[in-house]
């Protein structure tokens, strides 16, 4: 195989690996939650893996990411250690935030991951501020600001759109439309359900993307980043995606039909379909994919062990990190 094709094949395999890592990690997190080892609210990303993995496949070093509380996948896709993420979920001293943030509030200054925000929509102006900082410093970095179809109805989103276009800030607004804002469907909450048009009165272009297709996401992401980096201002990527689990662990998701869920799981699953494509293209065989699964499972089991065996934060941590 020529070098270019080989590197392309490796990067495609990495996309598969990263999506599967998120899937298996989230399943394990769900299990630990069931065992009472993870507390509070825990929002799983299962079904939406292609969105963040595709975009990270297009991002460059130095680009920032920020999202809401369904954030485990975003961190794993950025290469943050699954052990540190899982240990934060179990509230241990070895967690990313030393156990003080939990599932919804995690950050990595090193990897330019700015959270992990528990208030729906609050990450949008903050992500716009990251883009402001890029422009202020004259850097070429782009802020990837993720939010859901629910957050898309918050006023501060439009305040941000206005300033971002006014000042031509390098921010990609990634709207992860998983069709339900907790239990309220897009049809019941949004006057205009095509989220790619949400920036139109500000002159922000928007693109609809199949968020269940990692390659489509990556391609759209690459174009959007090029647009931002060339100084044209913000752009919206509306990702059509689906979450398989409830809004959080305690949501039975009775507001949607079994058929709808089955349709996505059986026919549109981002991991299954991408695996098939890789086989069809002769880049991998079944055995290779099993091998990836085995590797991923090992990483996740180790993360779970680490997260359950690490000690809780010391009591002295109660009063640290309040002020610099």
């Amino acid at each position, binding site marked *: 195989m020529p070098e270019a094709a080989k590197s392309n094949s490796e990067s495609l395999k990495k996309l598969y690996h990263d999506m599967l890592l998120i899937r*298996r990690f989230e399943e394990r997190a769900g*299990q*630990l*939650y*069931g*065992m009472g*080892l993870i507390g*509070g609210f825990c929002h799983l990303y299962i079904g939406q893996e292609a969105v963040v993995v595709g975009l990270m496949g297009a991002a460059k070093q130095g680009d*920032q990411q*920020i999202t809401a509380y369904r954030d485990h996948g975003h961190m794993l896709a950025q290469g943050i250690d699954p052990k540190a993420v899982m240990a934060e979920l179990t*509230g*241990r*001293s070895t967690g*990313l*935030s*030393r*156990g*003080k*943030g939990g599932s919804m*509030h*995690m*950050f*990595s200054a090193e990897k330019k991951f*700015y*959270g*992990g*925000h528990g*208030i729906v929509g*609050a990450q949008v*102006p*903050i*992500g*716009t*501020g990251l883009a*402001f*900082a890029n422009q*202020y410093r004259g850097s070429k970095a782009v802020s990837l600001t993720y939010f859901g179809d629910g957050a898309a109805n918050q*006023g*501060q989103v439009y*305040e*941000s759109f206005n*300033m971002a276009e006014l000042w031509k800030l390098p921010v990609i607004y990634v709207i992860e439309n998983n069709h339900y804002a907790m239990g309220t469907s897009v049809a019941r909450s949004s006057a205009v359900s095509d989220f790619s048009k949400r920036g139109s009165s500000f002159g922000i272009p928007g693109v609809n993307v199949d968020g269940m297709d990692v390659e489509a996401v990556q391609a759209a992401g690459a174009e959007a980043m090029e647009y931002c980096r060339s100084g044209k201002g913000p752009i919206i990527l509306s990702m059509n995606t689906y979450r*398989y689990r409830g809004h959080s662990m*305690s949501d*039975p998701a*009775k507001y949607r039909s079994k058929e709808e869920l089955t349709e996505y799981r059986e026919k549109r699953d981002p991991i299954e379909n991408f695996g098939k494509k890789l086989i069809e293209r002769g880049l991998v065989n079944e055995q290779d994919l099993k091998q990836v699964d085995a590797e991923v499972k090992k990483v996740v*089991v180790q993360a779970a062990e680490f997260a*359950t065996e690490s*000690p*809780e*934060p010391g*009591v*002295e941590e*109660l*009063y*640290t*990190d*309040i*002020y*610099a």
Partner: protein
Amino acid sequence: MSTEILMPALSPTMEEGKLSKWLVKEGDIVKSGTILAEIETDKATMEFEAVDEGKIGQILVAEGTEGVKVNSPIATLLAEGEAPGAAPAKKAASAPKEAKSDAPPKENKDESHAAPKFAVPADPEVPEGTEMVMTTVRDALRDAMAEEMRRDELVFLMGEEVAEYQGAYKISQGLLEEFSARRVIDTPITEHGFTGLAVGAAFDGLKPIVEFMTWNFAMQAMDQIINSAAKTRYMSGGQMSCSIVFRGPNGAAARVAAQHSQDYAAWYASVPGMKVIAPYSAADAKGLLKAAIRDPNPVCFLENEILYGKSFPVPKLDDYVLPIGKARICRPGTDVTIVSYSITVGQALEAAEKLAEEGIEAEVIDLRTLRPLDMDTVLESVKKTNRIVTFEQAWPVCSIGSEVCSRVALEAFDYLDAPPTKVSGKDVPMPYAANLEKLALPTILDLVEAVKAVCYKA
């Protein structure tokens, strides 16, 4: 080796539940994502999925069983080719270990649970012979920002009308000309948005000064100030910094009625992770704003519109920076302690002069910083005077005065010769009518009377 499938917790508070229905039977092959059973919690019926693949060995809890404890085994899962009789292995999970502090045990109380004390240095000495220049609070604030912007390229000012209009209250006069539109930025009227944007810029290492045209409008941005700016350092385990100053006029102006006349001091001072400053004099406004801009934490800087035009002597020094968290004794006295902040400090000083005429020597303390609160200075004074009256424009319920009085009662009870007493604004929204507005605000006479009452000279 088989593993146990355990009864899951499916909500933050669930301790037991009903296993309503099995969706698999013994011998079924399952993989991750296969729905195993329906489980009823106190709130809902939930589907329970498999995480590991394998074959269902034994079903240990029959469907329809109620009160199944979380984490009790409900079935066994066999690995490929394994016989159902195999002994189950314990799930590799342990309850959280009790965390131990490395600190040695203390005799009476565990100090590690106590909030750390801030060690705050005294004000820097102003060298003898330093020229004092009469300066308005307005110019002092502008000078502070200009000096810090010259000193640090990362500092910028953003807000409504701060640039071309030169500031709604003319605080930012001349800054646009000196620092250009890149660093003095007019925003749309969008408090929630530009506050969040500035917080994001601060997370990335810039040092924004956000001007609110008045603090009343910051209510629109409350979530970003509290949930994003103040809490993120803690939630990130110390990884994220938010060096940012929120500033603008606070409290009552004149005849602008309820929505434009409110003192937010107690609101912000109650938030851990936030620092709150409310200066009175121009020198303090300058020295403390410079300190706030340099501080690596979020700072709410509460100014007062009526003070903007008042002049005070300000030392002519290249870099006059004051410590955050240090109260100032503006007038020493022996008979009673008056504690105030912002504009009411001036009234307190006037009251003290009147009281002196009647033979009562009041010690007037300007808190200057409201969080961290310099209770050491207050307590030391009360131990000397044995009496305290707090004086503020804010509403009386849960006010800064309430906090100071409660701390004094708790920490200097044996020194008190009279009940700690509050003089505050009235417990009403600010009325518009001139006569009612006057009644709603505390007066020098109110303070004089309260002081006489605690001195038993009424």
